[in-house]
């Protein structure tokens, strides 16, 4: 009983311990290897890191919920791109341009709505056809990407709105706008998953779907709502990022699903569902970004980042398996 508790603490704490190790390592290694004179643990550097974590981070939060619920979403990268196009494209529409800065909230709203609708389509298909979410979203990953090209063509779309850029680059209490969005989203979703009936039911469904069905929980609407949510979050991520960059390429967001899943798994969420935490995912996102920056800081080629992250993901899996082994007498199947 207590060993379970220890394991739980270990699991929740592991990602933060890993972040500490990273910080220490890069700080010390940086002293000897750094290409710049700046210290790694520089405050501004850390703030920037948080900001840079935001795009993948916001999506990873949604992925956590989807995975706790026992599903997966491979279409988030395409949803991200499509929402970005809606955001930038809609601001060039005459109707919106006539509205001056009021176009901004409207464009945001349209982009977020796009994300939510794309999510809803996934959710509805998963719910009503009973086809596995992996396959449904594998399909819509292609399909939504196709829509991106159909709406946008093959050329990048650009539209810089300086009011928007100012907003996106602003700092409030030292944090960038993007960081605020990431942290607020994390807080809201954490509250949702730990405090609301929907959140608890999502855990129950992922943990033991049959039990949830037997207890009369309506599995479908809960899954649907979570898909809407991840679509919305993918759009939110796009909105935050492209408000500043102002230019979207139809291939943007590719492989985001894989990065998001990596962050979620690093944070300890179970692939089979029913277990995981929003806060740990935040840790996973930060750990990955830290690794990226840290490797750059000590002068490692940027290429090695992918290699290291991939191997760390596998190492985490191996470690998790070792922790869960029940001993030599276990059935060898």
């Amino acid at each position, binding site marked *: 009983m207590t060993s379970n508790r220890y394991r739980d603490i270990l699991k929740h704490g592991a990602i933060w311990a890993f972040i500490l190790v990273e910080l220490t390592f890069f700080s010390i290694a940086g002293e000897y290897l750094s290409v710049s004179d700046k210290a790694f643990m520089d405050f501004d550097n850390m703030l920037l890191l948080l900001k840079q974590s935001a795009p993948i981070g916001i999506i990873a939060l949604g992925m956590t919920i989807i995975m706790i619920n026992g599903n997966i979403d*491979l279409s988030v990268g395409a949803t991200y791109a499509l929402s970005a196009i809606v955001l930038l494209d809609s601001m060039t529409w005459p109707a919106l341009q006539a509205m001056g800065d009021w176009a901004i909230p409207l464009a945001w709203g349209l982009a977020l709505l796009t994300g939510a609708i794309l999510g809803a389509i996934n959710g509805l298909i998963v719910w*009503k056809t009973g086809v596995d979410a992996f396959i449904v979203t594998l*399909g819509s990953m292609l399909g*939504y990407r*196709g829509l991106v090209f159909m709406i946008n063509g093959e050329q990048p779309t650009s539209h810089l709105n300086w009011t928007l850029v100012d907003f996106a680059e602003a700092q409030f209490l030292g944090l960038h706008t993007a960081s605020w969005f990431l942290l607020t989203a994390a807080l809201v979703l954490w509250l949702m998953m730990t405090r609301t009936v929907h959140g608890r039911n999502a855990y129950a469904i992922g943990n033991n779907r049959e039990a949830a069905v037997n207890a009369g929980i309506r599995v479908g609407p809960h899954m649907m709502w979570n898909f809407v949510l991840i679509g919305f979050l993918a759009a939110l991520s796009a909105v935050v990022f492209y408000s500043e960059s102002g230019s979207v390429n139809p291939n943007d967001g590719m492989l985001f699903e894989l990065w998001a899943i990596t962050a979620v798994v690093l944070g300890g969420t179970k692939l089979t569902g029913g277990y995981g935490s929003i806060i740990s995912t935040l840790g996973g996102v930060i750990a990955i970004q830290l690794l990226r920056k840290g490797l750059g800081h000590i002068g490692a080629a940027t*290429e090695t980042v*992918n290699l290291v992250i991939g191997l760390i993901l*596998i190492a985490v*899996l191996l470690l998790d398996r070792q922790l869960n082994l029940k001993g030599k007498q276990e059935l060898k199947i």
Partner: protein
Amino acid sequence: MTGMTKQRIGNILAKQGILIAFAVFMIGFAIANQRFIAIDNISGVIRSSAILGVMALGVTFVVIGGNFDLSVGSMMSFSTIVVLDLHDKLGPALAIPAMFGLTMALGAFIGFLVGYMKLNSLIVTLGMLSAIHGLTLTWSGGKNMDIADKAGTWFSVFGQGRILGVPVPILIFAGLAIFFTVVLMKTPFGRKVYAVGGNGQAATFSGIPRARIVFLTYVISAFCVATAGLLQASRSLGSQNTVGQGMELQVLAAVILGGASLMGGSGTIFKTVIGVLILGFIQNGLLLMGLAFYVQYVVTWGIIILAVWLDVAAKRGRLWSPTA
């Protein structure tokens, strides 16, 4: 009586749905554009599908064995870059076996983790997708790779050559498809792959070395990836580091389209080939109709979901999911 007929139709659709869909598409495209069924067009489609197709053959083994392989795209980039690089350093005669060795070593590593260490294949291959991409970039230094003397090498024969008028990639694809069909349908190993994927526990209880079988499916997959990398490198004689990016999901789409269950234990090489060809012909047909390449993405989306939905619906005996 009508219920029976409905059931029958459902069964036929589920079992042969993919062939029917294939036929409908072919006829539709042929009516829309005569050029579609011209021999050179068909041969062109198969030739350009060969790289994806060869990879799909290997992934079919992995999926029948009950696992995923998301690393094949990234691994294909790796083998392409490696063989191109070694071509100039060692010469093609050594570069090719060296590249096969390295790629299959990666496959063996994945097979070890999934088979012997029993790690979740989705995450392992996701991690390897990233890691191998890093490996490729490290190998190439992030630069594109080109063969120095493009005109003077026999290396181009795999991607560009013809034997008796048939493009070599088609011969290789067809040859491997036949070979792997025989392996899967006729050998004890093939039977064991089905058993391990169908019910791993029962396979273990029947004395089948589950870990070794899973391991071998990944080695086969890596062999196919290496072959695909060879075709790719030989066709273009130069490559970006990201040449295979995203192919893992297209490959999976082809395998699923072919009707292999992601739960393992079902699927055939023949159906995977059909899945690959459907993807290829849809792309080609839509292009011939004057539609941009990305329209095929949307169409593929619809087809994948419909195909799997019909399959699931036939198994549960009702169209809509009973989930409340």
